[in-house]
């Protein structure tokens, strides 16, 4: 550190000692880098649209210019603002990183979403206004997938109930407690893709799958689990639950272990039954953890795709399709970048609205009363 406090009143006083030359140098560095970035970006944009004849073969130099500008900004702030500049460095790289990898792609995604852009189109990309949005409004496959998502999200509540039960079990004084805790976590450690193949395509296989053979043993003549719409959807939900219940269970278990046992013991002394102890004491006290767990799980659930893609490809007749698996087909199989991005952006907005409402509705439950 090259500056020091001279009046003991804080960092603003520290920055005052930065010499004017250094301030000018810092400002010059920032302005120069900004100008360079702006010039290169504008120049390349004009070239890309055929307005000028000088430009780069691709947009990589813009990325390099952004990195250089970011570095210049960091150095320039230190030179210009001294201690305050150093403080800015605690967050500035993260901000610049987020801008480059999250904020810019999101807004650039919007730009693409309003484009007619099929990678195999002879005409290349062209602005088409709201056409993709209108197409989405009339797209039965999108609405079908969205309706399926309502079902999948609703199953989170069932998963939560099971996870709570398992967490209570693992929180009790049972034998081999550590073993069961690890064993119950195993499904969560597996990739959903692996689960799709191991369970969806092997254990549930109609002819030789052990699960279907077991069902035959119990008298189900044709246990075809993935050809009837409601059954296929339920089977997918079951596989998904098998993977994710451990995640919810471990969060709830952590919450249970943080609860004071004195309250439960006091309730017992007062004559509360086991159910009363759970419903009147444990469950209310666990509400903040529960709501957090369910909200997190719903956010994950909204991205459900891998199990569906690998096991049913969205069928039969779209019965198991999800928004993400539909986007996957639009992008990968049809190279329809513009429309695929529109679906993704609209879905993102829907998720933001839904989660915001969810958080608002549940916020009062997420804080534990003192």
């Amino acid at each position, binding site marked *: 550190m090259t500056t020091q406090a001279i009046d003991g009143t804080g960092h603003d006083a520290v920055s005052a000692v930065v010499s004017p030359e250094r301030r000018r140098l810092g400002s010059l560095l920032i302005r120069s880098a900004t100008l360079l970035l702006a010039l290169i970006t504008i120049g390349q944009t004009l070239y890309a649209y055929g307005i000028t004849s000088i430009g780069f073969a691709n947009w990589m130099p813009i990325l390099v210019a952004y990195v250089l500008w970011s570095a210049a900004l960091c150095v320039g702030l230190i030179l210009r603002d001294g201690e305050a500049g150093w403080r800015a460095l605690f967050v500035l790289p993260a901000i610049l990183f987020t801008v480059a990898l999250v904020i810019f792609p999101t807004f650039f995604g919007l730009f693409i979403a309003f484009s007619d852009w099929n990678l195999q189109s*002879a005409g290349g990309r062209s602005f088409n206004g709201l056409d993709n949005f209108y197409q989405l409004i009339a797209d039965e496959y999108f609405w079908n997938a969205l309706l399926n998502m309502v079902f999948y999200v609703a199953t989170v509540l069932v998963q939560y109930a099971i996870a709570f039960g398992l967490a209570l079990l693992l929180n009790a004084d049972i034998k081999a407690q550590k073993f069961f805790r690890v064993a119950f976590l195993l499904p969560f450690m597996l990739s959903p893709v692996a689960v799709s193949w191991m369970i969806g395509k092997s254990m549930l296989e*109609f002819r030789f799958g052990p699960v279907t053979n077991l069902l035959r043993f119990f008298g189900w003549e044709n246990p075809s689990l*993935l050809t009837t719409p409601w059954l296929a959807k339920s089977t997918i939900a079951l596989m998904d639950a098998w993977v994710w219940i451990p995640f919810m269970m471990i969060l709830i278990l952590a919450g249970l272990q943080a609860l004071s046992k004195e309250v439960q013991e006091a309730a017992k002394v007062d004559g509360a039954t086991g159910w009363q102890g759970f419903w009147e004491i444990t469950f209310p006290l666990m509400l903040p953890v529960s709501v957090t767990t369910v909200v997190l799980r719903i956010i994950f659930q909204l991205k459900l795709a891998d199990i569906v893609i690998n096991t*049913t490809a969205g069928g039969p007749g779209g019965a198991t399709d999800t928004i993400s698996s539909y986007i996957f087909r639009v992008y990968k199989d049809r190279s329809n970048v513009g429309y695929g991005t529109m679906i993704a952006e609209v879905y993102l907005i829907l998720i933001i609205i839904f989660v915001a409402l969810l958080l608002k509705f549940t916020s009062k439950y997420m804080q534990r009363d003192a």
Partner: protein
Amino acid sequence: MKLELYNMLSRRTVLKGAAAASALAATGTIGMPPVRTAFAASDLRAAILQVPGVGKGEPTDAEWQKVGEMCLGPTKENVKEGEFKGVELSFMGLNNQNVHNVLFRGLSKAWADYTGATINWIDLAQADYNARLQQSIATGTVDFDVIEMGAPFEGDVCGKGLASVMPDWVAKQIDMDDYVGYLKAPVGTWDGKTYRISCDGDCHNFNYRSDVFADAGLAGEWKAAGGAGEWGPPKTWQQVNAYTKFLKGKQLDGQDLYGYLDPCKGWGGFGFYFLGSRATAYAKHPDDKAFLFDPDTMKPRVNNPAWVRAIQDVLDSLPSEPADQLNADPGTTGFQQFLAGTGTMLSWWGDIGSNVNTSDSSVIQGKTAFDILPGSDDVYNSKTGAWDKLASGPNYAPNMAYIGWGIYVMARVDADPVKQKAAWSLAAHLGGKDISLWMAAYPSGFQPYRQSHFDVKEWVGAGYDETFIASYLKSEADSYNHPNAAIEPRIPGIFQYYSEAEDILANIYAGKMKAQEGADAIAAAWEKRTDQLGRETQIKLYKASLGL
């Protein structure tokens, strides 16, 4: 050839191969002697088929290198030693099942050593191939000089001027006249220019259970049920459909019987080929090269009476097919059903036939035979809108699904004559006549595709069982050489059309739409797709791909 076909070699054929190998060893050919490249053609072909020797395990890099060296003769006739010193080539291809590019590395080592060129390999998994290729094209970042590519992508690459035109000396070196009929122009060509060196051939053939059709009990039941004609392998789709309904509920050797197997689940667009195999006999008229679109307007024909009949056939057959058929993709029908003894009839690529005797899950060894796809008693004439009955009998139209892999050189090498020659020389080496026989006979991922590949004696001499290989090769050859073969439209975005259709077909098969209603929906989606891709361009490229 497919890995499984290679692995099917019997102990007896191994011994025969060993005897032949011994004879060759006596001449100094086997056992890594100094390689002679001045073989008489037949000697060379016999010699390479003994590397490493049938039944002696899968070839390794050492064998690939050796075969590449033995087949260097044609290169030496056109290229001087060290002529490409300093030239660097990028080759993009697949790495599926450790063949394709992995194999090409070894096969081209001697070529690189002789010419002085360096090859950089870009390996892709099948699932990543289309996306990688399309992104390279769309973003103008083609970073490869040579590519292993399927003919359906020719519209994307050749149609956009991204490929290099084949020089005359290459055509001569690889003996293009030897290709089977359907791989000759217009396949591999655009606007009369040739771009492709074929290294594979693909078509759907018809696989059926010979034991079912030879069973006297079933024949009696068929007759008693008033079935038309004699009980035997079907020759038309009408027979296939009738047999499928008849076999529901029947048993053979205690096993439930089913007839034809339809894949109903999407398969990244590839599933549409299987509806195509049912439809071509109805939709591909001998007087009309087109069967999927109208070549003058790109108006889809997928909702015409021929295609709708094929869709309706599936709907009518599904109640007689296994209970899980709605969730069966082509991988399921081929490998989990047919090979495992479920189902009597199946359309597939050549892989099924080559798995019958080798796959661990196969229970139908010695019970399978092959033919070209069934025909139809009548064929739809798109020009007149009428169903025609041909004087020659049923209409046959084998489905040339995917048209196989080829090697293409990119136009970016054209600016440098030395690099261009190097790229074409490498492609010609890998697509050479003799080296292709070895690839057809050993695990490589490629099927036979040259007239010279169908000399049964050569295969038998290499150790293959004659009955099996003759039946298998005949079904392939008869499909390839059929005058009314339905050739895949080589237009940009063809898999987008197929993928779109798969989604709607899934709804039809699940009972959410009627056949005509669904076919109309597919046609509407395809019209939008054509508009997005550029109708005029598509028409032009479609016509070019049909040779119109």
